[in-house]
């Protein structure tokens, strides 16, 4: 047994170390490219981007909202596993936590690049404005990231060699024992920060495209964001699981586990998309007309922001995956399951795209002009940076940590 294989989880097979390192090197190249772009933004300033005074919120804010929505699988799967007691989900919860950890650390990294004065970032906590949705986001997101770290640590401690150290073994064991408390805390925090991210554009009463009425201080988008993250986050967890299975060429989770999560996601998505349809209808025929606009105006100027975006978000990436997931036959057919989880993941990203970038595009003053924006390579590179980081962390975690408890049983080593 060489040094590398001694670190693998017991009873599983991994690719050779050189092959693994080739993969790590390829991802590292992308990572270095992203880090270089990030350094340019930090040292030279945000003039490295294609943002401007009309497009102060752009690709990065979308990426933030999107990864946090996709990472929603962690809190919702944790909620189902520990609080609703869906015991089968214990076989996928580790991966959901890892994906959530990657998504949330990525969001914090992107935010660290996005603000004009990163060294003053702590002002958001020190001089907090309780009226601001971003304040709520910052507090809940940071706290939840700590929860994700606490949930990820026992997984690291289960590494075959670390587990041999009695202290780590007992620490990991005891942390597992109280994980329900952290899962509940995570679900509570996530409801608020997912919601407040929805509130970011929902409260902008000066921007009719994003503005929504609501309950008390919360616009409807507050609830819709939490709902959609709970619906589409698990779809992304399933998607990454299936991608990992395809790349590693082995089954890692039993079909009944995926089926249960897909079924719950499907019903969440189905109910969400009905609510989203009602919200869109109310916005188009009540909210926007009261501000003097015709809803079609917001989709009228250019092909980037045509009505296709509504069809794509609500029908193609909303109703279709929802129906595919709630129908037993299509849910249990591999090809249609793939289609459903891909569409659902795209759908939530399109929703975040519209509620960040499309909000900035249309003029509000009648004599003003539309604004369009194409990101600079530095923005693209720094947005891809977390993807590379995520792939790398998954590669390392998959190789050395027992992420999939059913892997040994599903892939017995014959020799």
């Amino acid at each position, binding site marked *: 047994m060489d040094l590398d294989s001694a670190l693998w989880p017991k009873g599983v097979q991994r690719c050779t170390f050189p092959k693994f390192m080739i993969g790590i090197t390829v991802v590292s190249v992308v990572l270095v490219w992203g880090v270089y772009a990030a350094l340019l933004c930090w040292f030279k*300033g945000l003039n490295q981007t294609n943002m401007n*005074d009309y497009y102060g919120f752009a690709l990065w804010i979308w990426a933030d909202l999107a990864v946090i929505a996709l990472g929603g699988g962690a809190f919702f799967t944790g909620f189902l596993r520990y609080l609703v007691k869906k015991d089968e989900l214990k076989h996928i919860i580790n991966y959901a936590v890892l994906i959530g950890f990657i998504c949330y650390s990525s969001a914090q990294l992107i935010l660290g690049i996005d603000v004009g004065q990163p060294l003053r970032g702590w002002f958001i906590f020190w001089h907090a404005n309780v009226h601001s949705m971003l304040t709520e986001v910052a507090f809940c997101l940071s706290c939840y990231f700590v929860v994700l770290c606490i949930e990820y640590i026992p997984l690291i401690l289960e590494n075959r060699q670390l587990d041999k150290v009695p202290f780590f073994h007992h620490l990991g064991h005891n942390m597992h024992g109280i994980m329900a408390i952290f899962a509940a805390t995570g679900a509570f925090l996530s409801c608020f920060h997912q919601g407040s991210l929805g509130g970011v554009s929902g409260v902008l009463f000066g921007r009719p495209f994003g503005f929504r009425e609501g309950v008390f201080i919360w616009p409807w988008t507050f609830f819709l964001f939490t709902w959609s993250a709970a619906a589409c986050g698990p779809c992304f967890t399933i998607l990454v699981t299936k991608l990992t299975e395809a790349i590693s060429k082995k089954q890692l989770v039993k079909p009944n586990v995926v089926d249960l999560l897909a079924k719950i996601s499907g019903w969440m998505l189905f109910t969400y998309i009905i609510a989203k349809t009602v919200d869109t209808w109310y916005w188009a025929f009540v909210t926007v007309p009261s501000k003097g606009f015709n809803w079609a105006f917001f989709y009228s100027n250019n092909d980037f922001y045509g009505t296709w975006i509504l069809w794509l978000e609500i029908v193609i990436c909303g109703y279709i995956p929802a129906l595919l997931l709630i129908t037993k036959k299509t849910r249990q057919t591999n090809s249609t399951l793939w289609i459903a989880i891909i569409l659902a993941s795209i759908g939530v990203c399109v929703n975040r795209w519209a509620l960040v970038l499309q909000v900035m595009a249309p003029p509000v003053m009648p004599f003003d002009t539309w604004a369009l924006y194409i990101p600079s390579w530095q923005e693209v590179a720094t947005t891809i940076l977390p993807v590379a980081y995520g792939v790398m962390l998954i590669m390392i975690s998959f190789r050395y940590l027992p992420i999939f408890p059913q892997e040994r049983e599903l892939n017995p080593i014959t020799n």
Partner: protein
Amino acid sequence: MKNNHNNGKAKKFGMVIDLDKCTGCGSCMVACMSENNVPFKADETDKRLSITWMLVYKLNNGKSHPDYDECYLPRPCMQCEGDHGHSPCVSVCPAVATDYSHETGIVSQIYTRCFGCRYCMAACPYHARYFNWWDPAWPADMEKYLSPNVSPRMRGIVEKCGFCFHRYQLAMDKAYYEGRDELEEGEYQTSCTQACPAGAIVFGDLNNPKHAVHKIALPDSKHGGRPKNPNAFRLLERLGTNPKVYYLSSRKWVRDSGDNYRPDEK
């Protein structure tokens, strides 16, 4: 001496801009930049990267000659109060780097507090907020012209018009020294007001019936400050921003350009 002062009554400093008088000369923009140490770049081609606290828009009635008509509309920060007591930008700032003063009605920007998240810019429908995408720079000798009363802003933060608030502070200092709580109307005027050669801009306390701004706009305090003067209007009144800049025009199409109307409302 300190106990003799009570800061006077609450003010609502505001502006009335007569669009029938504005010639679009841009003096207000130049005066504003000079007064407030607004930096500029060698290449100002992309106006969406230029910092112009006061910006003059050119409007037209969309008709052809001989019915063509045009109008220039100077746009400072509207110092919104919000119909519900929340300015669009103030309520969203996560670090209280911008605040609404109930003593003056002015929306402040605290440059050393702002960390550049730009949420306030996304919230402002008037595009009155500007981000410092670059380090502020002036040609060598121009640094000698900088006003010592206004701090230049650093890269990575948001800035905006504050109705030349430093002038208010200087006027109040003088008044305190002379044992007064209240300012005369002419003691506190913005640089754009003073620079306008056509006298199109009038500035003062909207709460004070003796001030010209009050007499012209006739703000209705029972209805969110809406003007009673039939020729006066505010930009985007329907959004509920409750701005303190009033515009004046005898031309209906100009007044109609101040807000959005559905086709069935026109």
